[in-house]
């Protein structure tokens, strides 16, 4: 067993910690830092509830070791709102009722906000393709797609 000193920037804030090599990134966020916005769903790299952005790319944090995030930039759902103002993707999920039980929502938002950063005007197909690794067991995909479209429009207005 090895322990490692890591420095990770999470939502713009530097964190340092000593972690066991087997600690998963999702557990580091939820249990060491009490950032419970990132959810654990399937535990098998299938559902995407635990999706966070690692250096800007959405990844499943149940399948990344915390030590692998050393020196990297992590963004979680807690980092979407800025200065008390919701991110357009959060506003979209609110306005378009993009959630029912809400369990998949943090992962959905981290994946779709990364999509919008790369592709500000995605087609419906592109949105559905991008979120195809994130499962909504309420099957509320119609409104999730509308929420992403709302956010894309909102971001276009703002730019």
């Amino acid at each position, binding site marked *: 067993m*090895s322990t490692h000193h890591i420095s990770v920037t999470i939502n713009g804030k530097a964190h340092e910690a000593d972690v066991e090599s087997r600690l998963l990134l999702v557990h580091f966020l939820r249990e060491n830092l009490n950032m419970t916005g990132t959810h654990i769903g399937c535990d098998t790299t299938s559902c995407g509830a635990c999706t966070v952005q690692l250096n800007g790319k959405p990844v499943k944090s149940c*399948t990344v070791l915390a030590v692998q995030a050393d020196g990297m930039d992590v963004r979680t759902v807690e980092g979407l709102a800025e200065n008390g103002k919701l991110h357009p993707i959060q506003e979209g999920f609110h306005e378009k009722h993009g959630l029912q039980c809400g369990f998949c929502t943090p992962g959905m938002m981290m*994946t779709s906000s990364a999509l919008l950063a790369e592709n500000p005007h995605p087609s419906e197909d592109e949105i559905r393709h991008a979120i195809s690794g994130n499962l909504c067991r309420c099957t509320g995909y119609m409104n999730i797609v509308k929420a992403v479209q709302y956010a894309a429009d909102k971001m276009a207005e703002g730019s």
Partner: protein
Amino acid sequence: MIPPSFDYVAPKTLSEAVAALGQNENAKVLAGGQSLIPLMRFRLAGPTMLVDLNRVEGLSYIDEKDGWLRIGAMTRQSAVEHSQLVSEKYSLLADTVKVLSDPVVRNRGTVGGNIANADPVNDEPATMLAYGAEIVAVGPKGERVIPIASFYLDLLQSALARDEILTEVRVPAPRPRSGGAYLKLERKVGDYATAAVAAQVELDTKDNFGSVGIGLTNVGLTAIKATAAEDFLKGKAASDDNIKQAAKLAAEAAQPVADVRGSEDYKRSLVRTYTVRALRLAIQRAKGG
């Protein structure tokens, strides 16, 4: 579900990685981790040391040189998916990465990992068999090149020695009038294939088959190279009758087992149907369609 304890090193150079691997006989290489980490969490794998390649420099690239497409082992699947070179010239590989797991997993998963894992559920092994790719491996004695046809030995067993690291995959650049396709049936995005077929063909000026490669995913202990079907087609006309006969031979080469995805007969039938369709699409692409 937390993995058992293990030591972890993240070397910056390949030679350090090879040395670390040689020091512990229960060490495993960690590439994208999208298969290995879940296996460790389920405690189906319990390496006592992980040698993480994610910080080794120079293992992530896609380029074409001297008639070969060279893909560095740590190239993320999403990089292959977004490569213009791949989408323009390597239709079989382009098809494959689009249906390989899901988009979020592809941001992490690597080409080298998918191939070295030697799990028949992985998609790129069949594709590389159809292409006739070469595997570059580096170990304590240096580098060697392994033809893909002799790379897969058994379930989860490849020709890589325990202290060797897969560093590069080389795909022969398709010649003019070549085309390929990958067809996969999956119950949902991210699922393993019920069955999938990779086909790569080259046509001569009379529309007869030149080289033909056919690989099968998840219908045996390893990815399967359907050699009888390939041999049957070589030199023959690219006709529907010949395609159907080859598909029958490919289905005979499959060794599926019944599971939640379907019965043996169903999967064999699927291989036959998808071989027909993959060959038709490959031919259409070879003709520039």
